[in-house]
């Protein structure tokens, strides 16, 4: 879901650390954090729950917010999401 325009954008300042917590905490933290952002702003989420990749994608579909980037480094999943509404 990575777009060229977004990969060149500067990394979001807000980072949500959801490492070493399991479902549903990463999604709950992500939702709480996105609500604090202004519309159009992005945040980075780091998680270690093995379900996070599928869950964050589903969260984006269901919530309507945009998943800008999704990647994995070792056991860590990284996401950039943008508040759209």
């Amino acid at each position, binding site marked *: 879901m990575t777009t060229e325009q977004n990969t060149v954008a500067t990394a979001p300042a807000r980072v949500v650390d959801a490492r070493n*917590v*399991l*479902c549903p905490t990463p999604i709950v933290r992500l939702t709480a954090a996105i609500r604090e952002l202004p519309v159009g702003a992005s945040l980075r989420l780091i998680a270690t729950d093995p379900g996070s990749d599928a869950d964050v994608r589903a969260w984006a579909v269901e919530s309507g917010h945009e998943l800008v980037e999704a990647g994995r480094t070792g056991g860590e999943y990284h996401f950039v999401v943008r508040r759209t509404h």
Partner: protein
Amino acid sequence: MSIGTAPPATSELEATVRRMVDERLAEADRKRTRRKKIALIATKGTLDWAYPPLILASTAASLGWDAGIFFTFYGLNIIHKKKREELAIAPIANPAMPMPVPLPNLLGAIPGMTPFATFMMKRMFRTNGVASIRELTDVAIEAGAKLFPCGMTMQVFGYRADDLLAGCQPVCGAAAFLSYASDADVTLAF
């Protein structure tokens, strides 16, 4: 069509088809744009059974869904201020329960095994980063999930409304919950 009946005029038929298509499109549009809803029932008051409805409801609320749980029978303990802290799990008759060493299941009947198993399970959850029941009930309420306490069970068990978490919905019965659940997209009972 019988021979004696004249077919409807083309314009009339066209108008009817057009109206039916419009209605179908409007219905599909309503389905697509309306907020999804999940309606759950929690009937069990053990530590393990408390998790699934709370996880699903707090996640659904995080996805922007309308989420509700009807707490009935022992499930009511999950939203009881004091009892939610004391939810336990019994190793007896639960052969799937992970044990530090393999033990005959009957040993689960020894006094102290239930508190021990509960302690072990809570520790296992904590070290793996699973939220506690207290955290999950708080999160569910904060995320906007509706927690419906069953009035019948409250009467039978002698629970008062202020024994329950402050963020719960008003005490209600089956009719109120059915009315809430009637247009749900997902319904599950635990």
